[in-house]
């Protein structure tokens, strides 16, 4: 891992922990963005942690960009020594794979896709060496995921699967971004899954849809009454495949204010995970099943 610092115009500094995605890079970027927050540097207006990088927005009228850069570099050693343990939660997210709404969108933007003759799921299954779409879907939901970034648009989570590197699923983004994506689409790009929190543009492949809203500016959804955004970096997610009947049932429950997401508190230790992934995941799933 080699850290790279660069300016984004005269108001941002972008710090890339690593070109590659890894949980080590994520933990370092999260720790460093926490250290920057704690340092309370005058002139800093926003701190945005991402998958393997983070960004600081600052006011160059208050602090010279070169001084800001120097201060950030001074904080790097603190991030290196930070504890790689998170007290967090695991959440079950229902997913209706191969739903009619994302399918319609998949077909509408075929000319922007690498393989216009098939669907996004057929393409993803094939390039990852699976015999069938079903087997690929199974690989997508069988092991839990880690929210490594929240952003793009309103509260959208980027998720990284908690499996060995050789088991990671990888797909390219669309050749050119779509101008439309259904709200709550479960997408995939690079090694990341995501949930599109709102309808809009997007470049990720589309696999399915969740009935569970994750962003509500009016805060009418019962579990979003405290804050309009559901996810934060460090959350752990387990996809739960559902059919159309279950999808409709949850949509109705959300509307009635009776839907309660399945959530359990857990701790995640990066060293424990790296030592024994199946054991670490089993512990997470045990907590979820007890919820």
């Amino acid at each position, binding site marked *: 891992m080699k850290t790279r610092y660069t300016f984004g115009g005269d*108001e941002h500094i972008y710090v890339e922990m690593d*070109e590659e995605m890894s949980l080590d890079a994520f933990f370092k970027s999260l720790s460093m963005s926490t250290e920057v927050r704690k340092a309370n540097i005058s002139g800093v*207006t926003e701190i945005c942690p991402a998958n393997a*990088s983070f960004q600081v927005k600052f006011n160059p009228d208050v602090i010279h960009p070169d001084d800001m850069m120097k201060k950030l570099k001074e904080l790097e050693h603190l991030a290196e020594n930070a504890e790689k343990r998170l007290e967090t939660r695991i959440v079950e997210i229902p997913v209706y794979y191969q739903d009619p709404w994302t399918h319609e969108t998949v077909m509408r933007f075929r000319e922007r896709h690498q393989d216009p003759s098939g669907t996004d799921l057929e393409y993803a299954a094939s390039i990852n060496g699976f015999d069938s779409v079903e087997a690929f879907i199974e690989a997508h939901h069988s092991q839990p995921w880690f929210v490594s970034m*929240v952003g793009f648009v309103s509260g959208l989570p980027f998720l990284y699967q908690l499996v060995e590197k050789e088991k990671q699923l*990888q797909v390219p983004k669309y*050749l050119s971004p779509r101008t439309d994506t259904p709200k709550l689409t479960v997408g995939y790009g690079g090694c990341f899954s995501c949930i599109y929190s709102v309808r809009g543009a997007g*470049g990720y492949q589309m696999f399915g849809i969740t009935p569970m809203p994750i962003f509500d500016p009016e805060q009418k959804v019962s579990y979003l009454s405290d804050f309009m955004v559901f996810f934060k970096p460090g959350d752990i997610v387990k996809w739960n495949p559902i059919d159309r009947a279950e999808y409709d049932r949850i949509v109705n429950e959300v509307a009635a204010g009776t839907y309660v997401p399945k959530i359990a508190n857990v701790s995640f230790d990066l060293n424990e995970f790296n030592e024994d992934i199946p054991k670490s995941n089993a512990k997470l799933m045990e907590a979820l099943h007890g919820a």
Partner: protein
Amino acid sequence: MALKILNSGLSTSIQDLGRPGYFHIGIPIGGAMDRLALQSANMLVGNDAGAAGLEAVFMGPEIEFTQDASIAVTGADIPIKLDGELREAWKSFNVKAGQKLSFDFLKTGARIYIAISGGIDTPIALGSRSTYTIGALGGFEGRNLAAGDEVPIGNGRLVPEGRTVPEALRRMPESSAELRVLPGLYWHRITEQSGKNFFDDEWKVAPEADRMGYRFRGGRPLDFVDRNQPFGAGSDPSNIVDGCYSYGSIQVPGGTEPIILHRDAVSGGGYFTLGAIISADMDFVGQLQPHTSVRFRRVDMKEALSARKERKDILTKITEALA
């Protein structure tokens, strides 16, 4: 006091100076695309420079006032009419209850700003009244204005008519533009020749130009430096492991069409960025019409900061002129 929207034009929204502090969860700063124009309009009518006003794109709205007020229109060049009679831009004038404000066809620029004494008084969402339509947040019910809307106005008092921003202090959009770029971010991903071409070529604003981003066409495609794509980035050479985007940053998906992220930027994503428009030129981007010719000019941090200071000095002079 309210504004009755008789016709909303093409896209008219409530904007102030935005909501900093939520980019880390994907909610952008938003606010007026041309900040100096909104600030000028507000000061002309005696408001705080950051009060909420209207931002209208390409076409003016038609508005009826329910009470007397002072108003000012700034930004793009467009004939302004009060009950059919022409009024001057960048100058305060009074309206009486029942009078109607309307506009003719836009001449140059893209966005006009309308400030009303007292400012727009819709509910504040996450610290701002700015409309963020993608998140259905702020503004009028989280959306652009529509005919029939009645927009609440705060308590203000009339100011003398004819208060004006000196012409030398009005930053007016031109028919062709030069945008200054500070290379950085993932600049190292493109070849030296492509980096040169990017600044040599003439680009044109594409029809896909909105509050989120401005797309450009017409320059040569960019070539990337060969590499094995890093794990997690995706296979296209323009892909990166999804990271944060800077306001003003320029991404070039597939190396073909540059996109400048603007006030309603997505906060991150998986396309490389080659640098960013300097903060002083962001207002100009918001005034570009589709098909406008644009050249990008390479600058260093020193020039970016001196341009920023120039822009700040203009704001100070306008503030003094209208004190």
